[in-house]
Structures are given as structure tokens and as C-alpha cells.
């Protein structure tokens, strides 16, 4: 376990370094932020002063080196636009994104597992076929368009739910959250369903495949032969066994959900870090873009690590040393 963790961590550091170099060089090749930051009628002296204060006059490798040294001290540079530390700006927005992503995953599990179990129990029944056909639809629906249609139907036509923003928030351990207020929940419902739609299909398919595979196994026959009721066999024995792949895949998909939140947040004007990224790309606010990417890379590496460890805990047959990283 320890050897596994050490090896994985050192690999992650290499990945992080390579990513930071790629991202830094890539992002710093975009446009010229000075033109956006300074009013057109500024004179040469003022322009020069801004360039110097942003460190844009140094060669690229020196900028990268400074960036790296500062990054190790937790300083990812100041936003050109807000003139605040990029890290702070992103961390401020992060709870909103994580809350949305978590709610979306909860929705996916809450609807996906029961539907998948139904479809797996009677694979040839009409309702199972319907569930599977609809799940193809769930894969194919473009997230952003579904979001628009949801706004149109629920916010514009019927007017049940608000179309944008985060609503009222309450501080939980010093972090503002929406899910504890009625208003916040209302605001979160549409974006979360929008974000979770794709994952519902995924969970349905995984659960169904697991059900079909497990129902043929000897332990199920044995449990029935022992005289256990079918609800006990399914909910206790089978469910436990199909949870292993579901937990792994859903865990790994969490990173994907956070990335796709970029789209959902832009549509529903959800004040998370994905919207900050899109706005910053538009404004050529390089430090924010770089910081966002590095933070998400770290997040993905952590998620993968946690899922791998969890996998070995759930399934004792898996030894961590065998896992590919």
C-alpha cells in the first residue's frame, strides 16, 4: 500500500510538472493581454509600466521559472483583470462547482441504479427495452441544448424554477452552500439534472450489465436454493457485487462532471469555477486559466488515486500493485 502510494505520488509529480509546462507555454502564447487591459489612449510610458508590473517583459523561460517557484509557495500569480490572487479567486468559486457536481452525481445514482436494476432483471420486457432506448437518448443529447430546453420549459414557459444564479446560500463550516435553503435548492435543481443526465445513462448501463452478469452466477443460484426471498438475494447479495464497478466508474467520472460543469455553468450562469474559466479565456486572463488547469489536474490525480484505493477496499481480490496508474 505504502509503496503503491509513493510510486503513484512521484508519477503524479512528473505529470503535474509536464502539464504545468505545456499549459504555461500554451496559454502564454494566446494573444496580448496588454491590449485588453489598457485603455487605447494610454501612452507608451503607461503601457511599459503595466508590462513591467505584470512581468511580461521577461523571457518566457524566466516567467515559467518564476511561476514555478511561486507556485510551490502557493502563489499562482495575480489575475490580470481582478488584480487578486488567482488561487483565491478559484478557491472562492470552487465550492459552487463541487456542490453542483456532487448533486449531479447523487441524481445519477438515485435514478440510475434502480432503473438499471429493473432493466437488468427482465432484459426482454418492454419497459426494460424502453429504459435502454431512452438511455441511448441520454448519451446522445447534447448537454448544452438540453440545458437551454430546460430553461425554456421550466423557467420561461411554466415558470416553476429560476433560470440562473445560485440563489440564497448559507454558510456551512464557513463555506457558502445552496442545498440547505429552499431557494438555493430550486436554483440548483435544473443545472444539476442537466449535468447529471449523461451520467444517469451511464449508471443505468453499468447497473444493467452488472445485474445480467451476476444473476447467472452460482452464488445467486445457491442463495435461491437456500430459500432466500428474491428481494433479499437482489438487494443484499447482488447489489453488493454490482456496486464495485459502479463506484469505480462513477468516481472516475466525477472529474468529467467537474469539467462538463464548464458548459452547464455557462448556460445557467452558475457562479462556479467553470464559468470563471470561460470568462477568463475570453478576457485573456492568463493566470486564472493556468491556475484553473493546474488545480483541476491536481484534483483529477487525487480522484484517480482515491478511486484506486477505494477499489481495493471494496474488492479484496484486487491488489493495488497490480493496478495500472
Amino acid at each position, binding site marked *: 500500500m505504502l509503496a503503491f502510494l509513493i510510486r503513484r505520488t512521484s508519477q503524479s509529480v512528473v505529470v503535474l510538472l509536464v502539464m504545468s509546462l505545456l499549459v504555461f507555454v500554451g496559454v502564454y502564447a494566446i494573444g496580448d493581454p496588454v491590449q485588453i487591459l489598457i485603455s487605447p489612449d494610454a501612452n507608451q510610458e503607461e503601457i511599459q509600466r503595466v508590462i513591467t508590473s505584470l512581468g511580461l517583459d521577461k523571457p518566457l523561460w524566466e516567467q515559467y521559472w518564476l511561476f514555478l517557484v511561486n507556485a510551490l509557495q502557493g502563489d499562482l500569480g495575480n489575475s490580470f483583470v481582478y488584480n487578486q490572487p488567482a488561487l483565491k479567486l478559484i478557491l472562492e468559486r470552487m465550492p459552487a462547482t463541487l456542490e453542483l457536481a456532487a448533486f449531479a452525481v447523487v441524481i445519477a445514482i438515485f435514478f440510475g441504479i434502480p432503473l438499471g436494476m429493473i432493466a437488468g432483471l427482465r432484459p426482454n420486457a418492454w419497459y426494460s427495452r424502453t429504459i435502454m432506448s431512452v438511455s441511448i437518448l441520454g448519451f*446522445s443529447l447534447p448537454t448544452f441544448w438540453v440545458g437551454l430546453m430546460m430553461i425554456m420549459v421550466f423557467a420561461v414557459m411554466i415558470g416553476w424554477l429560476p433560470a440562473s444564479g445560485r440563489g440564497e446560500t448559507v454558510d456551512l463550516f464557513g463555506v457558502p452552500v445552496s442545498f440547505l435553503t429552499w431557494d438555493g435548492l430550486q436554483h440548483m435543481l435544473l443545472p444539476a439534472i442537466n449535468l447529471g443526465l449523461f451520467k444517469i445513462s451511464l449508471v443505468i448501463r453499468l447497473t444493467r450489465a452488472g445485474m445480467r452478469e451476476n444473476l447467472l452466477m452460482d452464488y445467486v443460484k445457491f442463495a435461491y436454493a437456500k430459500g432466500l426471498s428474491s428481494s433479499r438475494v437482489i438487494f443484499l447479495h447482488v447489489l453488493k457485487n454490482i456496486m464495485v464497478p459502479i463506484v469505480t466508474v462513477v468516481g472516475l467520472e466525477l472529474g468529467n462532471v467537474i469539467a462538463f460543469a464548464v458548459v452547464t455553468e455557462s448556460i445557467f450562469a452558475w457562479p462556479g469555477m467553470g464559468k470563471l474559466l470561460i470568462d477568463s479565456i475570453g478576457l485573456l486572463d492568463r493566470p486564472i486559466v493556468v491556475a484553473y488547469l493546474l488545480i483541476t489536474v491536481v484534483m483529477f490525480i487525487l480522484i484517480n488515486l482515491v478511486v484506486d484505493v477505494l477499489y481495493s477496499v471494496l474488492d479484496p481480490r484486487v491488489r493495488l500493485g497490480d493496478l495500472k496508474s
Partner: protein
Amino acid sequence: MSAASENMAAAPDDHAPIPAPQTPFRRLVSDFCESKLAVGGLIVFAVIALIAIFAPLISPQDPYDLMQLDIMNGKLPPGSHDDYMGITFWLGTDDQGRDLLSGIFYGLRISLSVGIASAFLSLLIGGAVGLFAAYAGGKWDAFLMRVVDIQLSFPAILIALILLAVLGQGIDKIIIALVVTQWAYYARTVRGSALIERSKEYIEAAQCLSLGQNRIIFSHLLPNCLPPLIVVVTMRVAYAVMLEATLSFLGMGLPITEPSLGLLIANGFEYMLSGNYWISFFPGIALLLTIVSINLVGDHLRDILNPRLQR
């Protein structure tokens, strides 16, 4: 039933006519036709592809010829008629007075060509990498597959967003971004099936005949790796179309001069809150039909090409 008993009866003596061997392609076609849903998907996709190819011939107006547009026709609801120009806007018009039906036809053209071009290019690059990794083995294989693993652990949309932010807008740039995000899937698929096929006897036989390495790879190994590859290609084309639409919607994909379906939808977003739903709605339906039809075909292909489920 009667055919089966006839066969049973005919089996002992060797005079029974041997049925003509079914070619793999024929078998594929007959298996494919078993699912009505998949055939329906294929038909819908064929229609969409024809529309995309012949868009300039069948569109009621050229939506990007400014001479044909009249700003007074802006945001007309579906079914409105313009007596002056003598055309009916079956799906309404957008804010510029553009016929949406024509806009969708042209949009399909761009969306599909971007999707197919990027899938084809990633197939070439990923396929070459995968074949090389499987055939070279050892350190090269380990290195390339590690790169693939790392790349696949990052969501495609994030990689594409950053690339487009760096490269800028344009049809060539979005194809580059899509290829970079997709090649790894092909590389992994090709490598996986090439490794399995490589250890089979016919490859050994070909090696014993001392056929050239290129000939073994390209005329023996590659054709046998095709089934899983076909499935991946269909699914990836659908994903590429969706990703392109999403990126264009976010304003990071195609420029306004090359309006794909994603841009049409983004354009309608502004007017949706005031009730002009059709500007976003209909392009979305066209996008949805395209993706669903490709996915239906791909989903069924996966079932019939999977050797584990072969009857």
C-alpha cells in the same frame, strides 16, 4: 425446424449440397438488419448525410448570401410567409432574417464534415500509434500506452477548450483540437485488438511463410482488428459532432462565418428568454437526430461485432 431436420438427415452422406459460404460482410448486413431501431438509425443518418451533401441545392435560400436576407424578416415564427421574396420559412427565421431550415442544412454540412474529418484523421494517427505499440512491444509500448492513459484521464472537453484558446478559431483548428482529444481512443482500441490477433496462429503462419513485416501488419493483422475499430469510429464520430457543437456554443469553436449547428443554437440562446424558442430548438433537434442515429447504429454494431455475444 424442417430445414434443421433435413440437414441432420443429410449430414451422414456427403452428397448434400454445401451451402455457399457466407462472406463476413453479408453476415454483418443480415445481422444488422435484425434490429429495426438500428436500421431506422441508419436510414435517418443517410437522409441527414444526403441533406448535408446537397445542402446548396435543396435549401430554400442561401443563408449566407446577404443579398437574399431581409432584416425585416427577423425572428419570424415557423410557417411565416414572405410574399415579396416568395418563400415560406417553415422553421421560422433567426434575428438576421435568415431562413432557419436553410441554416440547419448548411450547419449540418459543417458539423458532419468536421466530425467525420476529425474521426478519420484520429483514426489514421491513433491507428498507426496503436499498431506500432502492439508490434514493437517492450519499452515503446509501455511509453505510448502511458501517454494514452494520462491523456484519457483528462476530460476531452477541457483539453479541447484549452487548445482552442491557444490556437484560436477556425475549422482547421477545431479539427486539430478534436484529433488531439480523440486519437488516444483509437490507439488503445487498435493496440488491444492487435495484441490479441498477433498471438493467433494465422499470424504465425504468415511469419513462417516469411512474408514481409508490412504485409503481415497491413494485409493480415489490420483487417482482423477492424470489427472493434468500426464500433469505435461510429461512436467517436457522434461524440466529435457533439463536442464540436458544444465548443462552438461556448464561442470557442467555429467562427461566425462558418456556422455549425452549435453556433445556430448559441445564437438563439439570446432570444429564447423572450419566447423565440425556434431559433435554438430546431437546430438542436437536427443535432440530436444526427447524434442519436449514429449512436443507434454504433450500439447495434457493437452487439453484432462482439465475438463474445456471437450466436
